[in-house]
Structure formats: C-alpha cells, structure tokens
C-alpha cells in the first residue's frame, strides 16, 4: 500500500477513536485516577502496619532499599493500569467490532486489515501513555512526592518503558485472539488482570515471591519494566542487572509480537473456516 494511503487509514482510525475518547471523557479520567486510588490502599495499609509514616519508610527501606514507598506504589499501580488498558484495549476493540457487526465489514474493505489493527494499537498506546503520565504526576503530587519523581532518572526509565511496550502489544494481539475466540471473556480478563498485578509485584519487591513464581513473573515484560523503572528512580535492585534486563526485553521484543501475531492469525483463520468472524 502506498504511504499516502497508509496515512489515510491511520487518520481515519485516529479520528474515530478520538471522537469516542472525547465523547466519554469520564472514562479517560477514570484510568488516570484509578491507579492513584488503588495505590492509596497499600500506602495507608503500610502506614497502619508500621505505626506511622516514618516507621513505615524505615521498615520499607530494609526490605526494598528505598524509603520512598509512595513513589514505589504509585509507579507500580500506574504501570499495572497501563498494562491492563494497553493489553485489553486491543482485544476489547476486536470484541466490540464483533458485537456491533462491523468486524466483518472492516475485514472486507480494500484496506489491509493489519493497518487498521496497527492504527488501533498506536492510538491505544498514545492514550494509555498519556494516562500513565498523568497518573504518575498527579499521584505523586497528591502524596507529596512529586519532587522525588521529577528527576533525570525519569528520562532513563522512559527508555525502559519504550522497550517494554513492543512485547506487551505483541501479547495483546494474542490476548485479542483469545477474546474473540472465547467470546465470554469477562471473567478471564478479570483473572488475568489480578494475576498480572500479583506477578508484576506492583506493591512489593519480587524477592518476596517464591522462586518458581518469580520465574513466571519475569516472563511478563512489564514485570521487568516495573521493577527496573523503580530501580532507576529509587535505587532499588534490578532483576539481574540493567544490561541483562535490557537484553531480555529486547529478546521479548522479537518473541512476543511473533507469538501474538501467530495466535491472532490462527484464530482468525479458524473463525473464517468455522462460524465466521461475526459470530459472537
């Protein structure tokens, strides 16, 4: 397809999604505020367990290497919500198209369907990234830790996030295929969201988890991103070391998109042979 046509496809996808996003501004704000509210629970729980905020900081430092449990929790919670909205955004979009009956129409257009999917992924990524940034800034400000967040180290940690995004979207393609295959995927999504939060160690260091669970959690790209962003910002420990963790993420950048695309393609072929992609 000519580059001009590709841009046209992206523009159309972006325009449609922009209309939807601005029509339901409340949901945009929800994904900014939810990680902040959710991170308040372990912050307040921690203060209650330790007795007061200063004891909480001391105790937390012994376990994690940092006394800044507020930024620790806000980063974890925000990245978890980023992971959820990025991963499920694509799958739920596919499901919505199935249910509204427009998936078949989209696949029948002269446009390469891959471009439409890519456009959806990119828009979803931009919105999720904006929500993540706002959640981090607003959350840190509310808890009085904005100064700790805004440092040069934040720029380095953004680089890590970029590395983690590509494998994550590869995973989202596989999950998208799973969603349109299983159809009633609400409970699966709920389970995987909680499982992700647990494996990512959004509120605690991975060293607290049993060895075999840690191996499972490292297979998920955002576990590495979450851990290493905190390592850079707060001087806690990396999974292995920064170069090794980056290498692992680069490896995932190749593996997960391949797996994701393969799963998605297989599901679509199976649906086209069977009940059709429009059946829900």
């Amino acid at each position, binding site marked *: 397809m000519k580059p001009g046509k590709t841009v046209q496809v992206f523009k159309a996808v972006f325009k449609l999604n922009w209309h939807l996003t601005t029509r339901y501004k409340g949901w945009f704000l929800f994904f900014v505020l939810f990680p902040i509210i959710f991170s308040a629970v372990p912050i307040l729980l921690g203060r209650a367990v330790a007795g007061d905020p200063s004891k909480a900081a001391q105790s*937390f430092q012994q376990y994690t290497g940092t006394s800044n449990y507020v930024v620790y929790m806000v980063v974890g919670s925000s990245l978890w919500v980023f992971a959820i909205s990025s991963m499920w955004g694509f799958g739920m979009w596919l499901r919505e198209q199935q249910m509204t009956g427009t998936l078949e129409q989209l696949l029948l257009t002269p446009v390469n369907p891959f471009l439409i999917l890519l456009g959806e992924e990119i828009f979803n990524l931009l919105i999720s990234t904006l929500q993540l940034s706002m959640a981090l800034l607003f959350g840190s400000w509310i808890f009085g830790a904005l100064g700790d967040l805004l440092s040069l180290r934040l720029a380095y940690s953004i680089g890590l996030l970029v590395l983690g995004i590509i494998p994550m979207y590869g995973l989202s393609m596989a999950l998208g295929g799973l969603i349109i295959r299983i159809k009633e995927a609400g409970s699966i999504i709920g389970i995987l969201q909680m499982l992700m939060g647990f494996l990512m160690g959004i509120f605690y260091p991975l060293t607290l988890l049993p060895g075999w669970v840690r191996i499972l959690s490292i297979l998920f790209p955002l576990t590495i991103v979450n851990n290493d962003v905190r390592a850079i910002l707060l001087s806690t420990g990396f999974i292995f070391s920064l170069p090794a963790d980056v290498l692992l993420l680069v490896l995932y950048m190749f593996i997960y998109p391949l797996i994701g695309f393969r799963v998605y393609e297989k599901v679509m072929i199976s649906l086209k042979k069977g009940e059709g992609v429009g059946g829900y």
Partner: protein
Amino acid sequence: MIKKEFKILTRYPLNFIGGFIQVFFLILMFLYSMLPFSAGSEGIPGSESLLWGSMFFFFVSDALWAIGTSVRWEQVSGTLEQLYLTPSKQWLILLARGLRSYLIDLPLVLWLLLVVYLVTGYFEAANPLLGIYILVLSLIGLTGLGYAYAGAVLALKRTANLFTNMFQFILLIFCAMFFPFRALPKSILTVSKLIPISYMVDSFRSIMTGESPELINANIRLIGFNLKPLYFELLIVHLMALILPIAGFKLYNWMIEKALKEGTLGQY
C-alpha cells in the same frame, strides 16, 4: 426473580469461579504489600483490618451494582418499561437482585477469610454471633443505599457505570475497608465520620477483633445516657438499618415517578 438471576449465573459458571480466583490474587497482592512494612514483627500486623473490613467492599459493590446500576441494565436491554407494566412490585425485583448478590458473595467472603488465614495464620472472631447480627443490619442499610443509588442511576444515565466504579473505590478509602481508620489523614477521617458505612465497618471490625472502635474515642452523652463508643456506633448502625431503606426507597420511587411523568423511563 432470584430463580431467574441464578439461572443467568449458572449459565456462566466461569464468571462465578473466576470471582474466587480474582479474590485470591487481590488479597495476596495486599497481604504481600504489607510485608515490607512489618520488619521485626511477627506475622503480618494489620491482617485483622483486611480480614474483617474487606468483605464490606463486596457488599457495598453489590448494593451499587446489583441493586443500583441494575436499573440501567434493564433500561439498556429495553426491559425496564416491560417490567413496570407487569403486576409485580418493582421494589421486590431490586430486592431480589440484592439478595441474589449477597447470597452469591457469601462463599466469596468465606473464601476471603480462608485465604487470609492460610497466608497469615491469623483468624480471630471475638464475638461471631454479634458480628453476624451487625453484618445483617449493615446489609439492610446497604440495601437502602442501593435503592437510593438506583434512583440516582436514572438521572446519571450513561455516566452511571463510570460513577459507580469511582464511587465504590472512593468508599473503599473513606470507609477504610482494607485498613484501619488510624491510617487515614485527619482531613479524610473527618469525611469518613460523616459516612454511615464507616460505622458499619468500624463496629463490625471492633466486635470481631475485640478491640475498641476507632471512629469514636470517648463516651457520648445522649438523652441522659452515657454511651460507650461501641454502643454509640451500634446505635448508628441500627438507625441506618431503619433510615436508609426508607429514605432509599422513597428516593427511588420519586425518581421513577419523575421518569414516568417525563416519559424517560426507557431512555438511557
């Protein structure tokens, strides 16, 4: 109505089983989050707050979603007007949904208690019978909240789902369902004391752990009686079990009458 709701539930058993798995990982997340703060302590201090407060999150969610927002589901599926044309009492339909949710959440709550016990080794129920009595009173009060919310949902329309999501998590914080009230800053605690659900959570937790309540610290003098903090909180819970259902039911009926007059009952 309960039979119909259970039929829907049994049609999607994965949703029911999924709830247990979600609760398992959610509780694990919060329990593990407490570990870095418990250096030098035995076990996980604060487990009692999580154990005896977190179940209120399920019941509050039931009141908001199963009773309150269910009106919207009926609007969207186009069956609300049909329901109102039947000879059935409409408030019974909402009540049936609430009862169904409470019954379904009962095994989830028991599962929650088991998970906390298995992970922390902590289980204490100082006054289980009185605790169950307070829980039942709280559920009656929450049902009233559900009715009031159902009325509000008719006005909120499309924003109802979003508002419900935010509202339940705001209540989670302000009513200290997962942590003790002493963890809250004073400014938030002031607001907590104005919310009836806070007293349900605090009195229930106090009864089950045998500890003093946190919201009221001193005896309260009321109509010549010198009430201890726990008794005063129990009085509030009893009053809410009476006031909330009546007020909630009246608000719900008023909103329905308004929607019928405006012809907007089926509009969502």
